[in-house]
């Protein structure tokens, strides 16, 4: 209709997620790779039986090794802000699908010969990394929306500030209360609401929460005077604010926790792979 401003050429990325990136380009590539490996496995004439040490086994092994090294480099790519036309989204997309293709390629490489040895350890570690990665993409797909809903428009700093503001109000409001009651409020205020174990964080359960306890105590008393009502109201607000922060912490923890498996297991995998390759070549 009207003369619209011209479009900007070559924007780095379009609006689509890393899983969909360029219409599943890397999914297709990974699938083709798997099919090729499978077909090769079926037709390659290896004697006496398919095995990592055959020529075809070497081929698959080399591909798998290169893939693993490349997959590990994502950790570097993510942090090295060099110039150039790369996008981390494209890397992640390729990482996910090529990483999954390892399930097929590496398994075929083993020729289904597993045992209690360094070779199988490498294989197991790889499967662990992949399994944790699968968990990763699941939470990446599901949780961001929840994270966004929970935080509304508040930033982490605002949440902490809002809590601090409530605490100041509570501190002042608790002054006129009886000794025992005000002690309860002070106990709640003194408790560091962010110190929580991994499990508490992941499950979002804080049975020792003194704010909740103080609230319960106030609830038991049915005849609250004006001061007590004000304190109870503030405690409610504090509990709500704590709940938001804790939910945020839980979601962030769920989004991050798998990396604590994925990365160390990657390091271990690289170690095991080195041992695997060295042993294959030197201790035939």
């Amino acid at each position, binding site marked *: 209709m009207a003369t619209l401003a011209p479009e900007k050429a070559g924007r780095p990325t379009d609006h689509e997620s890393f899983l969909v990136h360029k219409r599943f380009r890397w999914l297709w590539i990974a699938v083709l790779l798997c099919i090729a490996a499978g077909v090769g496995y079926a037709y390659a004439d290896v004697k006496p039986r398919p095995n990592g040490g055959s020529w075809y086994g070497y081929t698959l092994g080399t591909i798998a090794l290169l893939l693993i090294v490349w997959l590990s480099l994502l950790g570097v790519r993510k942090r090295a*802000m060099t110039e150039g036309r790369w996008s981390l989204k494209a890397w992640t997309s390729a990482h996910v699908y090529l990483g999954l293709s390892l399930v097929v390629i590496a398994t075929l490489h083993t020729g289904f010969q597993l045992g209690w040895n360094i070779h199988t350890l490498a294989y197991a570690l790889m499967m662990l990394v992949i399994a944790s990665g699968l968990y990763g993409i699941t939470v990446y797909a599901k949780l961001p929306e929840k994270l966004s809903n929970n935080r509304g428009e508040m930033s982490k700093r605002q949440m902490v500030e809002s809590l601090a503001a409530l605490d100041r109000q509570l501190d002042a409001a608790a002054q006129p209360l009886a000794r025992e009651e005000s002690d309860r409020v002070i106990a709640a205020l003194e408790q560091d609401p962010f110190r929580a174990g991994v499990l508490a964080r992941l499950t979002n359960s804080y049975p020792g929460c003194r704010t909740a306890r103080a609230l319960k105590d106030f609830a038991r008393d049915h005849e609250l005077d004006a001061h007590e009502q004000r304190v109870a109201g503030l405690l409610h607000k504090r509990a709500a604010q704590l709940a938001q922060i804790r939910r945020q912490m839980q979601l962030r923890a769920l989004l991050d926790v798998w990396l604590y498996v994925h990365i160390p297991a990657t390091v271990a995998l690289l170690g095991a792979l080195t041992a695997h390759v060295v042993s294959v070549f030197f201790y035939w």
Partner: protein
Amino acid sequence: MAGTDGIVDVAIVGSGPAGLSAAAHAAAKGMSHVLLEKTDHLSDTIYKYQKGKHVMATPSHLVLRADLDFDAGKREAILDTWNRQLGEAQANVMLNAEVTAIEGAAGDFKLTLKNGRTVRAKAVVMAIGTQGNPNLVRCPVGEGAVVQYQLDDPGEYVDEHIVVIGAGDAGIENAMGLAADPQQGNKVTIVNRSRDFATAKAANVQALLAMEGEGRITVMLETTASAINQGEIVFDTRDGEVRAPCDRVIARMGSAPPRAFVEAACAEFEEREGKRAIKAGTGIAFTSADRVAYPRLTPTFESTVPGIYVIGALAGYPLIKHCMNQGHDVIEFLAGNTSLKPADEPILEEKFADLPGKQSVDEWLALFGRNVVILQELSTLQLRELMLDSDARYFKAGEVIFTRNDPGSSMFAIAQGSVAVEVNPKDPSVTVPIGEGLIFGEVGLISGRRRGATIRAAEPTIALEFSRNAALKLLATAPSAARAVNRISIERQLLQMFGSGLTSEDLEEIVEAAVVEDKRAGEVIIEEGADDKDVFVIRRGSVVVEKSIGGHPVFLNYLPAGSYFGEMAVIDGSKRTATVKSAIKSQVVRFPGDAFNRLLERKPALREKALTDMAARRKLNAFVEERKESFGDAADYHSQTAQFLVDNGIGEATDVLLIDETLCVGCDNCEKACADSHDGLSRLDREAGRTYAHLHVPTSCRHCEHPHCMADCPPNAIKRGPDGEVFIDETCIGCGNCQRNCPYGVIRMDAKPPKKPGLLSWMFLGLGPGPGEASYSWRKKKAEASGKEVPKVAIKCDMCSGIEGGPACVRACPTGAAIRVGPEKFLSVAQIGKVG
């Protein structure tokens, strides 16, 4: 102090860098003089800078020509030096001497001071800067009541009842500063005359309301002070009179520019419409009525009142070095040294060095002033200043000056030669000439968007390129230039929009009848169902098109600057089929519909084009109409999302970072990447900012079409770059004006941190703070260890200009949540997979 008969050779009004330097030079030359200063200290503007501010001495290539020293350094050191050196020079200074009136004529001026005394002088140098006077409280102030107009250190006051009047940014910041530390025990109240905080930044208002919620500040709206007494204040509120205890009033109600005082110097007055007004042709004349206009001056700084000279910020030179040089020069001129060349001469010489033919700076300036139509009204001084901010370039025949779709906000004028405009992008051989003395490129200047056509030099050509700021200043100071540019730009915009072999003759009627109209944000331009018949072109800003469906406005379209609308009703005589409102403060050109129709009749090709455009729009309307019933939620969603984006500045954005929160995992890699690509400081705050339907607009620069931040930058350090990015260059002096002016709060003031150890040493050796912005404490410790003083300057997103691959935030996002969009894409983002 005085000469023989109580009259000095020169009275210098105002002791800023300009006045100080003039006084020092007069003293050195043994010229009898007096320096009059309003406050009880020298150089009030600099005195009021933040404590410890690092003052910068830009432009660095300009030599300092003054008797006082000036080098970059701390505010305190600079003020100390000046105080000492002025004493040593035995300059004659009167403090607490505010000049309230100037009368008389060259040879015998009489300056009246606020305290009633008078000073006589043969000549007057006005160096009073542009700060003006704070607006005073209008209610009666009782004996012993404390009313102040400035707050230097909020930590100074304890256990006081303090009332802040005026809820603009300054008032809010003062009030929050006073209440920040509960230990101080201040009871702070802020009062505002109106119901909303129209002049304050959203972030400030939010913070204020949060503090009110915590009970730390009392906010009183629709309230004025009606009396201030010792220990008490009386308010006039909606519910009547209210009294409150009050030990101190801090009034922050803006300030009145010093223009009225300047204009009244030596003026004659007359009654006009019952008011005392200055008689035309008397007093110090300004170049125009515009807010940014300056006094009209000769090359020796003499105003339209002979014998009164104007220098410094008031003359339009806001940098300290310029001010000091002018203080020196003006005394030289007064002493009769008229052949003195300005200190910026070498800069201009260098600018003109590449032009063919060896001519002097004065000769070039004369040529430009003579040949270029819009410059003919300017004085040599103005021309000099304009050229300091501009470029003169030589182009060989056939050389490209700019290319279609180039971003660019500068305007060109042809000083010699002519150029050819390639009007048809598909066939570069079709061109339209623009001749000597005329301008081009003005559309970019007005709409801030991309170039519409490629332009080449048709013969060897000298073109002047005016930066956006310089051009806007020119338009504000030379009314005839403004009129000329206006007319040309309307005509060119039409030519470019309608293309189809039109000539300027075809457009004559329509351009003649065109009216430029300013529209407030949200103002309705066309109402659905009305039967007016005008056509509009958006010159600046943007509009939204809506249709009312079942009583709900349903968003149809968003049109950026350079689009036209309203032609449908004109072509087929129907009623208006949709409502068009400005999305942000906009400027449109209105044409009468019948003139437009006549144009279409004469030009079948244009008619064809208009009909095609219209068909597309019809289809959209019909589509919406058809789905009236089923639309409901989806349409609402669409409208609201669009509205949300407009509210958050996308309507004036040229490029903005959005985060799709259904994809964002909160890894902050975008912020880290930003910091690592820009001196270690992030220019983006991912979490802060508004969110609607999971579409988040983080706190990061929108690269506005008309950047608010550019408005008041003393060294003109804010520019638009080759990719349309708005960036701040190294001449920033850290004054903080831009930070205050940006409505989106995206500019931060910070010092460039020291270098961190590299990525590999961090990964394998654990050295340094790792990727991303280092913590404040790390930066501080490192900076102290290095012992170098690094000034705080303004930093903001520059769209990663010059970095291959483009914006780091987008490249570094692992999930695809971070995207950058321009206005052309923003609609499709608003629809993210929902409506359909």
